[in-house]
Structure formats: structure tokens, C-alpha cells
């Protein structure tokens, strides 16, 4: 567990530059985030989520609504909330980091799947798993740098968040978005520059988790604390991560 979680701030300028670059050279050449590229292509929707942690109170309404939506077995989590506590008395802070599958644009889990049971949908960018094809080999669990996958004990298949596709396709928001007390979660189409999520990403400093992994996550955060307890411990600082799930250590 020595991986270090670091942050990358996507600045508005970079974002705008991204659009400019993309517009100039065409799709696929943008160096910065996916939305910029997508905005130009103007193709099918590409779903993403933005979580504004200024509005998050760490209440777990998202975690539990997800449990109910899918009857997620105990021990497994499609959606969870980590707490990051740090500092020295009395200058102590605690911040919250809701977690879910990042629906990466370059999903490591898809690359390793030997059966093609998991893929990124062209229609909307959501990474899905077909439990009828999955053989439960767990390669994807190991490949995912975010610990977002699990073997569902009921189906024996790999499982994870799919942005509540069954709701989204019926015009609803994902369950966690609907449940969020502070309206911290914005779900929408990253391909549409006029969507709320695209506008918020364009006008706020946002980060993603572990950008160095090259997975290009589609879950963005505003005001996330990316502190890591192992790095902090090495530096003699107090950082405590509570994952609030069976895996008590954060991957």
C-alpha cells in the first residue's frame, strides 16, 4: 500500500486551452481532460460526475442509497465515503471523499479482462460488466487503481458502479446523486459544453484521483483533499484515512 495519491489541479486556463487545442487539431489530440476533447466531437453523450466537496458533509446517504438500489451485499461497496482527518491540535481538519468507479476513459480493468466481460460503452462512456460472461478471475480487481471493483458473492461476477445506468436511461439521476443532501454531486454529459457538469468543470479548479495512473477518470472533484496517510507518516505528519468499508486501507 505504498502508492501515493497525488492531485492534479486542472486549471480553467488549461481547460480552455484544451478546447482551443482540440478545436485546432481535431479530436483526439487534446492533452487535457476528456470533456474538452468531447466537446468538439459533439458526438454521443459521455457521462461523468463532478463532486463538489464544499457541499459534502460525509453523511453516507450516497453509500446507503447505493446499497439499497442494488441490494449490494455486505462487505462490498459500489459507492463509499472516505474521511481524511489531519493536522495537530487544535488545527485539525476532517474532509470527506466520496468514492465510486471513475468510469475511466482508459480503463485499466477493461484492458486486462480475458473474456471481454467488461467494456466501455460507446454510447455513453460508462464502463460496464456483463455478469454472464465474467469468469470471476479478479484480474480487473487487481488492475483497478481505485479499488472500485469487487466480486459479487451472489453472481460470482466482478461488479462495480455503473452510474445507475438503469435509472439514467429512464431519465433519472444516479441514486447517489438523487440522495446527496448537499447537492454535491453533479451528473451529466461531459460531451456537452453547455451541460452543468461541463460548465462547473470549466469554471472551477477540479482534480481527479491518481492522474499519474493514466486512466483518465471521468469523476472529478472540487476541493478534494488528496492527503495520503503513508506519505504523511513518512513526513511525521498526522493523516488518518477512514474508508468506512471492509477494506480499511485505501488502495
Amino acid at each position, binding site marked *: 500500500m505504498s502508492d501515493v495519491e497525488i492531485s492534479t489541479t486542472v486549471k480553467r486556463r488549461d481547460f480552455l486551452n484544451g478546447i482551443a487545442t482540440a478545436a485546432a487539431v481535431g479530436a483526439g489530440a487534446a492533452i487535457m481532460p476528456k470533456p474538452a476533447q468531447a466537446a468538439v466531437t459533439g458526438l454521443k453523450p459521455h457521462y461523468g460526475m463532478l463532486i*463538489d466537496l*464544499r*457541499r*459534502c*458533509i*460525509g*453523511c453516507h*446517504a450516497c*453509500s*446507503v*442509497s447505493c*446499497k*439499497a*438500489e*442494488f441490494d449490494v*451485499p*455486505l*462487505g462490498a461497496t459500489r459507492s463509499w465515503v472516505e474521511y481524511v*482527518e489531519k*493536522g495537530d*491540535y*487544535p488545527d*485539525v*481538519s*476532517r474532509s470527506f471523499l466520496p468514492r465510486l468507479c471513475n468510469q475511466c476513459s482508459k480503463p485499466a480493468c477493461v484492458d486486462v479482462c480475458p473474456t471481454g466481460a467488461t467494456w466501455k*460503452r460507446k*454510447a455513453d462512456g460508462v464502463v460496464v460488466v*456483463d*455478469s*454472464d*460472461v465474467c469468469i470471476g478471475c479478479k484480474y480487473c480487481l487487481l488492475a483497478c487503481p481505485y479499488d472500485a471493483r469487487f466480486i459479487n*458473492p451472489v*453472481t460470482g461476477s466482478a461488479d462495480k458502479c455503473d452510474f*445507475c*445506468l*438503469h*435509472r*439514467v*436511461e*429512464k*431519465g*433519472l*439521476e444516479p*441514486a447517489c446523486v*438523487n*440522495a*446527496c*443532501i*448537499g*447537492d454535491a454531486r453533479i*451528473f*451529466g*454529459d461531459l460531451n*456537452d459544453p453547455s*451541460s*452543468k457538469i461541463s460548465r462547473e468543470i470549466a469554471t472551477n479548479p477540479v482534480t481527479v484521483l491518481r492522474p499519474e495512473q493514466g486512466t483518465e477518470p471521468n469523476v472529478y472533484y472540487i476541493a478534494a483533499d488528496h492527503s495520503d496517510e503513508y506519505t504523511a507518516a513518512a513526513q511525521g505528519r498526522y493523516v*488518518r484515512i477512514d474508508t*468506512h*468499508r*471492509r477494506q480499511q486501507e485505501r488502495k
Partner: protein
Amino acid sequence: MTSRRNFLKLGAVAATATAAITGTGALTWAKENRIKGGRDYSPTTGKARKAIPSACWQCVSRCPIIGFIEEGRLVKVEGQPNSIRTDGKVCAKAHAGPNQVYDPDRILYPMRRVGKRGEGKWKRVSWDDALTEVAGRLKKLRDDGQPEKFMFHYGRMKASSSKLVGMFLANYGTGTIGNHTSICEGAKWTGQELTWGKHYDNWDFDHTKYVLNLGSNLLEAHTNHTSEAQRLVKALADRRIKMVTFDVRLSNTAAKSTEWVPVKPGTDIAVLLAMSNVVMNEGLYQGEGEAFLSFCRATPNVNASTADKVAALKAHLASYTPEWAEKISGVAADKIRTIAREFATTKPAVLVTYRGLVAHYYGPEGERAAQMLAAITGNIDNPGGRCKAVGAKWKFPSGPKDKPTAKKLKIVDGFKGQAKLPTHHINHQIFNVIKDGSLGRPDVYMWYCYAPVYSNGDCKANAAVMKDETLIPYSVCINPFYDESAALADIILPDATYLERWDWEDMVSPNQVPEHYIRQPLVKPLGEARNFGDVVCDLAERMGFPLGIKNMEDFVEKSCEMTPGVKEAGGFEYMKTHGVWHDPKAKPSYYGYAKPVKAADLAKDGVILDEATSTYWNWKKAKVKTVEDAKAKGYAHTKDAYKTYIGQKIGDKVYKGFKPDKVNKTGYFELYSTVMEDNGFAPMPTYKAIPEHVAMKPDDMILTTFKVNVQTHSRTQNCKWLTEIYHDNPAWINPASAEARNIKEGDRIRVASGIGHIETTARVTPAVAPGVIAIAMHCGHWEYGRYASGKKSPFVKEDIVHDKQMWWKSHGEHPNWIIPNDPDPISGQQRWMDTVVNVSKSVSA
């Protein structure tokens, strides 16, 4: 069943089909305007789940919800999108509602004890047998002229349940009725009754510009939790308002605040008094505060001028300087000054308080001091301030006309002299009082929505009395679940969970506009569980005094058909379909105290002006014999005269004022209380050191308890989705305190008070003040089913899938074993936060 693969691949087709059916066009959902709740679909079949509006009851906030049914099973609960209270949001506990219904350890049938009490041996009996037995016991007491020997003890019984069960008790004739408020926040309510009358303060976060919080963790737990929490976080994020939280511990609320100010336990009142000192001495009361003083009483003379009031306040507060408060609270004087100035000059500002302030020795004084600071800055019942609560007013059937005069055992207010103003009773003393016996003992002890053994302090003593058949001859538990108290019952009547029953509801609105809503069954009660509201109708019938109400559904239906507004909207049918109703034309309620009293109301028979208090009251309704007697005795000293209050004369006008409740205060906002004075206390809010804290030895620590966001105090630990997140409660200890005791993270530690000790685990964290050990409630159940305690109830014979999935082995430790049941001398509030403990590394470790 459609396979997952088909669903995933057919997704786009299905969406198109939906669009075709609804006619909204496939592009709609691809864009922005997504539906805000109220609908849900099965992730496996894609079929719509049946949606039914109802109301949560995991906690007392009782938020409107939508339940979703799939193949006859309740699978999901979410917020009611049409609720003006919650705006469709509910907390994690509400989302875990289905866990209550399908708890594998539920009690599904009436059970009669067959072994010794507490031995855990039970026999299933029919409802007819059970009720014949209970009604037989009760009827005999009633027929013998001893109805008071039936004690009914309830916890969070609210709204229609409170009314219908109350109707049963009144018609039976017992007044021996216990509640649980003294283990909750009774001191806060007593403090409010002494200042502004009827209790409950709503914090108007939608309009405030500054939040000062002393001892409330409202982002994790509150009696109006989600309604207030969502408004607060939006105020913080959208309007960037400042919030300062004083707490001994960095709660999530403190963490989200602009600033956390650690304070020594039980000394927040010193900070509040010093802030009022700053406000008065620096003239910061001028403006809104000064204007509000005309509605305040601050001197013995009710007709004092504002200048006199200012002088009296300054004189009273003179010694409460920030430097004085610094020595007591550990909060720097400069910090107190700065925050006082900010609070007084940012308009409007809201003062938030809860148990951290009041669950102490002299707890009501903390609330009175808070009320004073809010008053002198003009932040009372104003937009953006601390407002008088507004809730739905239901009309409901009143039951039979001729009721017996209730008789009661005087056992719910503790022992004589324990508290002078127990306006919400002292029920944590009930087992001590029963054991003592000098005030009488009930023959039948029945409890409902309550966990007496677990929820009070000194669990060992509670259990000992509950178990003793010589002290409590017959005990009846009404509960869907087998908790520590049910285990000590003689008979258990299985209640329907809140998701299987009827009720009407009325919780306070955060936006000052009342909302009516109902609870209706999302699924039929499992097994033979029955709503206790139905059971009391049955019991009354069996004892020969029918209530004229068939069951709770009947009561709710009749209430809907007679409540103005609800009735015109369509009554019961409307409520069943929509779940919630509010008057779309209603305006938020503020400044109710400044409304004039109509001349006709003053001219009514029996209404007189009390010269001493300038209060109009009705001597006839107060049952005084003659007007001369009434005038001689006066409003303040006539028993229950407050119930006849009409208005307050201020200058030459008569205002509605701050209507009194529970005590004979005037219609002023009383910063000076003759009620307190008459009971031997200081008339103005006064600091009193906590005796045990004064007597602390250098090594001692102060134990404080708290709640987390995914659990209620005692009744959600059976919910697997919640307890999976929070099942262990290590004790928070500051690194400095830990080092002094050679305690390291994860060490087993011994926490010992005057009544016993517990062993728990140390969580060494800077998020708690030095000298304080903080242990969350919720954990350490020794019953309540497998998820809470690791122990199944006696009613489950076979293993089911739940066992294989449950991965946590630890269930934490319950702090109440070492917290004595100790009343505050004013209100009788249980002093949860005052216990002095010795903390050391566990020897056995």
C-alpha cells in the same frame, strides 16, 4: 428475469421504448432535465418499482419519504421530492429503512416468557391470548380503583401515535406516564420555557449570514436533521457564510465550520456570558438588539425602560469578562471578543445550541445564556435567526367525552428535591424511584418506542430493577425487535415497523411554513406484527371502554377529513396519493410575538390584567374561586395560570408576546426570571462550576459522548447497511492525554468512573481536546440482533444468507455502563457530559 447482459446491451433500445411510451423524446434524458426522484427501476429487470409516499421514523425528524416496492418487497427508500421540509433529501439512516423490515432477528409474533425473567426462554402465543392476558391485568387494576398502577413509558412516540395512545391512557385513567426527554435535551427545553415559552428553536439557515454553534452536531444528528443539515451546508457553500463551532470534539459539524474552537466540557456557558458582556459593554446591542429589548424582561420591574434593562444587563454581566471566561473555558479572551463582535454585527445571525451545551449540571443556564445573547443582538424569531418552531396543526378525533379523572403515581419526577423545575420529568430516575418504593410502584410497566435498559445511564442498575419481579410484577414490551429491555419483559407485543403502518405527522418545518404529511404501510406487517395504535383500540374495547376508533388507519383517515387545508385538498385520498400537503399561500412565520391581541380576547369572561406582571390571564379558566382570590394570589403564583395566558401589556399595547408553557412566566422574553428566583436560583443566567469538575484530580479526564451520522442512539444498529459503516466506537483521546498515560493508537484501555469501568480501544486523535475522552453512543449492544451485537434473537432458528455476509466482529462498547443517572438540579436533565473518569492502559492487554 432479464439477464444483466441483455439489459446492458438493450439499454438504448429500452430507453427509446420509454420515450415512445411517455412521448417525451429520447433526447430529453440525454440532456439536463433529469427527474428529481419519485421514480425508480429495478437494475436487474428494468421494470418500474412501485412508489408509495410515506414517512420515515428512524429518528424523530420523521422526514417524508417514498418507498419503492419490487415483487412485493420493500427494496428502497428515498426522500419525498415534494416535501418543502426536506426537498427530497433524507439521511443514510432513512435509506437503510428496508433493513428494519427485513431484520432477520425481528419479533414477528406475540411472545410470552416461559423461563425466569431475562432467561431468554419464550413461547409464541396468539394475539388473542396476549391481549386477554394484558387486558385482564389492566382491567383488574382499573376495576380496583388503582389505574395509576399501570405505568406507560414511551420514547419517541409522536404525532398521531402520541394522540391515539394518549387517548387510550386517558380513557383508561392512568396518569403514570413516563417519557424520555430528560435523557435527551430536557434542560434545553426548560431553559427555553423560562425565556420564550413553548420549546423548540428552528435555525433559519436559508436567510442567515452567520452561524454560532455551541455543542450541536447538526450535520450528523439533530431532531430535525436532514432538513436543517442541507440548508446549513448550502448556506456555507453558496452564500459563503461564516460558521463558528464550539465543541470539545471535532464533530463533522465542527469540521465543516469555518472555525472549530475547542472548549473545556461544561464551560460553553462561560463563553456565552462573556460574549454577552462584550455585546453590552461595546454597545453592540444597539439597533436590532435594543429594539428587541422592549419585548424582554431584564429586571424585577416588568415596566422598566430600555435604559433600565440595559443597565441591569450590564450590571449582571459585569464580572463575566472574556478574561474570566478564558480561565474557565480555555478559550482565549481575544477569540471570545472577536467572535462576539462578529456575531453581533453580522445581521442576521443564528445561535445554535444542543446537548453539548445543556447536558450538564445547571444545563438550562446554558440555554438561557444562549437565549440572552441571541436576544440582545436581535436574533430572535426573525428571518435568519433563532425562530419559534412551526409545525403542522392536525385536527383529530378526541375520543369518548366522559373520561375518568386520571390518577397517577408521583414517580416520574425523581425524588423530592432532585430538581426544582423538571418540566420534562426525570425519567432516568424511574428505576431508582421504583427500587426505593416510597413513592409507590407500578404493578404493570409497559414501554413503547423506548429502550430503558440501554438508553439510560447506569445500565447495570436499570437491568437489575427491570429483572426483579418483586419490584416490577408484570412488564409488557412493545417492540418490533429484541433489544436489551425486551429481553427482560414478561410479554412482548410485536410492533409494526414504521414502514408497515399508518400515522399522521407534524415535525417542525425548517422554512417556517408548516407541512402536513402521513405515514402509510409500504408493505403489510411481517408475521403478526401490529401497529400499537391498532392494539390500544383493541385493548380499550376488551376492557369495556371503546375509543370509537377502529384502528390507526381510521384515526388518520378521520384526521385528514377534519383538518383544514388537508380536507379541502382531498383529505385522506389526497394524502395517500401525495403523502405531503402544505398551504401554497402560507407565508413563513416570523415575529409572532409582536402581533397585537384582539380587544375582544381581552374582554372575554374571566380575563384580567395581573398588575405585578402586566400579563393578561383568565382567572376563571385557572379555576380560582373568586376574582379577589385571583388578584390576591396573582398570575405568577396561581397553579398552572400559564395555561390561561392571553397577552402581555407592554406600554399601552397588548401583544401576543412569548406565550408561556409549563411555568408561569410573563409574555416577555424573560432574561430575568422570577420563576427561577422563586425556586431559589439566580433570576438571570448564571455560571455555576460543575462540582465534580472542580474536585477533579490531575490525572482525571472528562467523559463525553456523541452521535455519528449513520446511527441513532439505540435503535438503528440492527440495520446492516448502517452498522456495516459504523459498528465500533473506539474512545477518542488527544495525543497529549494519551502520551501522559502511555496509551498508543489501538491500545486496549480501561475507562473507570465512580460506578464501574469499561474496556475499549483508543483512537489517538488531535480531533478531541486534551483532558477529554469521547466515546460515541450506538455501540456495545448485548442484544438487538446479530448486526448490533453478534447475537441472534431467540426467535430465529435457522441460519440465513445474512450470516455469511456479515464481516465485522467488533460491536464496540457502550459508555452508559459508567455514566451515572444524575439529574441537573434545575431541570432534572441527565448529565451525560459531566462524568469524571480515570483512563489507563488496560492491564489485561
